């Protein structure tokens, strides 16, 4: 099989991750912390070969990417799977792009052979990407171009560093997970209710981010322009400028698009229950200043700032941030109820209270990933090279109980003594991950792919009769 090695790295989803200096680099081994270790822990890279040998779920992985074309149905397109680009990252950051495989067996052999540190999934091309050279001549009718691709989203906690108070960069803990959980809720609701998508796969990216794969046929066939449009529709938070969040909310009216209002309801629940208390967003002066900067109203801000400063260090039985949020709300309500305050001021305050939620908690999409058909994205079930965690699928319906710190690792699967409780727990967790993959995604997708192939054949037959 011809392969293409590219020294130059393509832009990839977790480029930022790899630049982090912290954590042990793949290939070096460290001692496990906690109980004194009996033997040195194996490195992630050492465990990749056995992982690909016995644990990687090839059946599910290939069943997904074949979209029913691996069936015996006479209308199935046997070349479908082979036109998909996979990109292998080999040890030493060598990117091997435009890999393609005939079937599961061929993929399995290649992975056992090359032991990629990472696998990225690209688009489906009009021809087998391995044969693209024949199509890149000058003749305009022989082009090599992507024709299909899942609609993907990438959300990463590092993009929340200006609002996370528990840690920065590669850090992740139970206090910052609510930000990801509400992101899943908001985006998932839009995709299903507004766009009518059904086959949506959510994946933990292995460290502190999440990926979303929308696999409906309609989503896969979208043009780049349409992808950009969806990404823009979903982007209420548009980065920050001079420390202030840029928000795409209605500037002309207090009413917002119904989709944005739904997001607000979801954000509000997450905000009061988890994000506000866990991120301690009003617990100290720098934190509350950031919030008051959005409220803007001088009178309200001064009053609250003064009160909170005087009471600094006060102990409370409840959560200090939640209490202060309630105070802030009361102050705003007072203005809203007062007869003397003018309309513009009331409007501004009303809007500002919403803006706090959008600025702090609205999903921060890396839109570049979503806009183009040929953007690569890390495959589910890969192993994160630094953490050793499996990129497991997540159930959006129970996203709040997902624990990123308890995700099954390659060490748990392969570096614990056979039959030990730890090994058993890891086996169990992996089995559950596969169950999630089936239950939330694959089974329904398979049924609908099958139906769609049959339906296409039928309509083709009818068209044939009509002629």
């Amino acid at each position: 099989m011809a392969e293409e090695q590219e020294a130059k790295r393509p832009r990839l989803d977790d480029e930022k991750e790899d630049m982090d200096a912290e954590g042990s680099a793949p290939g070096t081994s460290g001692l496990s912390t906690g109980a004194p270790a009996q033997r040195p822990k194996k490195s992630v890279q050492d465990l990749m070969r056995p992982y690909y040998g016995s644990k990687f779920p090839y059946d599910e992985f290939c069943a997904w990417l074949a979209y029913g074309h691996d069936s015996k149905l006479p209308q199935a397109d046997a070349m479908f799977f082979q036109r998909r680009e996979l990109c292998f990252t080999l040890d030493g950051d060598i990117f091997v792009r435009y890999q393609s495989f005939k079937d599961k067996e061929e993929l399995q052999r290649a992975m056992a052979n090359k032991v990629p540190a990472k696998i990225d999934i690209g688009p489906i091309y009009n021809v087998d990407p391995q044969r693209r050279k024949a199509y890149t001549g000058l003749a305009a009718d022989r082009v090599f171009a992507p024709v299909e691709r899942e609609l993907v989203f990438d959300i990463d906690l590092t993009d929340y560093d200006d609002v996370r108070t528990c840690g920065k960069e590669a850090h992740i803990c139970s206090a910052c997970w609510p930000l990801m959980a509400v992101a899943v809720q908001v985006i998932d609701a839009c995709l299903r209710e507004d766009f009518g998508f059904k086959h949506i796969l959510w994946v933990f990216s292995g460290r502190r981010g999440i990926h979303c794969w929308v696999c409906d046929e309609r989503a896969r066939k979208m043009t780049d322009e349409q992808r950009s449009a969806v990404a823009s529709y979903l982007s209420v938070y548009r980065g920050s400028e001079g420390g202030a969040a840029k928000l795409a909310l209605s500037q002309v009216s207090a009413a917002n698009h119904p989709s944005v209002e739904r997001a607000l309801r979801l954000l509000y629940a997450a905000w009061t229950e988890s994000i506000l208390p866990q991120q301690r967003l009003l617990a100290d002066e720098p934190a509350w200043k950031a919030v008051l900067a959005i409220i803007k109203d001088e009178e309200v801000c001064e009053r609250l700032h003064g009160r909170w400063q005087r009471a600094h260090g006060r102990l409370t039985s409840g959560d200090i941030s939640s209490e202060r949020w309630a105070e802030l709300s009361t102050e705003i309500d007072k203005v809203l109820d007062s007869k003397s305050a003018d309309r513009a001021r009331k409007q501004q305050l009303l809007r500002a209270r919403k803006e706090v939620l959008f600025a702090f908690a609205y999903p921060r999409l890396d839109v570049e990933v979503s806009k183009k058909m040929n953007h690569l994205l890390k495959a589910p079930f890969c192993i994160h090279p630094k953490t050793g965690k499996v990129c497991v699928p997540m159930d959006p319906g129970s996203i709040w109980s997902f624990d990123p710190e308890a995700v099954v690792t390659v060490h748990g699967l392969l570096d614990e003594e056979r039959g030990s409780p730890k090994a058993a727990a890891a086996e169990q967790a992996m089995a559950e991950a596969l169950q999630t993959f089936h239950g939330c995604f694959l089974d329904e997708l398979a049924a609908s792919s099958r139906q769609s192939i049959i339906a296409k054949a039928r309509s083709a037959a009818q068209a044939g009769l009509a002629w």
Partner: protein
Amino acid sequence: MSAWMQKQQARSTRAAAVASAVAEDAAELASEQRISMYTEAPSGEVCIEDFERYAIDRLRVLKGIEEAKTKGFKGDQLQELVVKLAEKHLRGATQQETRWKDAVSHFVLRLAYCKTEDLRRWFLQHECELFKSRFRNELPASQVDFMRRHSFDYEALAGEEYQVLKPDLVKVQESVGNSAFANEIKQATSRDAFFKVPFEQVPDLVATRRVLLKAGWAYVSRHEVASLVVSRFRAGLSHALVLTARRWATIIADEEADRLTPLISTLSERYLGPDYGDERKGPSEAVMAAQIPYLAKESFPLCMQSMYHRLHTDAHLKHNGRLQLGLFLKGIGLPLEEAMKFWRAEFGPKCMGEAFDKKYAYGVRYNYAKEGKRTDYTPYSCMKIIQTPVPRGEAFGCPYKTASPQELTEQLRAMRLPPRVVEEAVSKARGHHYQLACTAVFQGQHNCICESGISHPNQYYDESRKELTAAQGATATVTLGGAEHKTPVVKSSASAQALTAGPTPMTT
């Protein structure tokens, strides 16, 4: 012509029969005559003169649109202007002729503009603008009718579904500031107010959250149907252009090698303004070789500046550069003798005396039509310069296209332009609006407004000279009055208005 016309008539009668139950026949026929989706090429005969004349007339419309956008026209103002332009240039003696001319000119330009990505983008953009303006110019009834006729057979939202969605529909309208329309929906059962379409068909409305989305359907208000129709038009034309490019390469170019090919392949390079070659400059305007260095600094557009700079530092310039710069210099009024002096001096360090005469003098004389075919060569327009492919490392071409954003930033900074102008120009260039970038630089450099936009390097030069003499006059008077600052010279109030209307919108 007649075969095609018959087909058209047959089609409209058939369509009319289908639709007559719903709409007034008059409106239908009218819309059909004014706008077309250009789904079928006209078949019939057209003489080669008309072929060319029609194409050029349409080109005038498209270039007019480009110019208007450069000046910041948008919305209703733009629409009005575009409709007027089309009226002026594309109107025939009869309605039939108008329709015929519209179709023929469209298809000829398709051929001329299908060959490269850049050309296709330009053509697509301006054809869509033309189509959109014409469509929006139709009455609502006629718009709906046009849609029906072109099987935009969307369901109009009605009945229970409408009632259920009403509060959300109202909210969307309010959020985009259409409160009048929102009230209308709230109060009346305004019929046919919304169409239900797959969201993929209105990406622009989705991106800006101007539609309600439910389960993959977009509910497009009757005020936004243009976006729906234009998006189909754009998709169709974009696809057709690619197909045409293929067919052109494989079939037509050969078959029509003697007749159409030469005409078609120069159409896209056709520059419709004054050609700066024919006008003979009077002696008072003649430029001397010795003046070139300071003129270059003051009044050359960036392309000519950088070629001149390259020539000066390398004491050499390759063929294409010599041609472009040489013709430009001829255009600004450098006579042949002075040109010889200039080139000899610049090449001096590397190539003197006889060697120069042997190698390069011919080229200089050639530019002045004293050698070769002895035709008078005219300076290149921006369009032509922009379209000539530039191999790596060569100095000719339009820098707004060829230079990287970093290089461009540096070059512009070196011209001591205000950072705002540099930024604007670089971002325009990055958006492939090279001539707009050049115009921005011109305006920044001369602190004035360039109404017409830059479309020819010699125009850049001429306007620059005009501005500078005018500015000298202006400063003089101002100083007499005692004030110190230079007042910007605004050439007409119309242009000032156009600019306050805001910058050219980037297409989304």
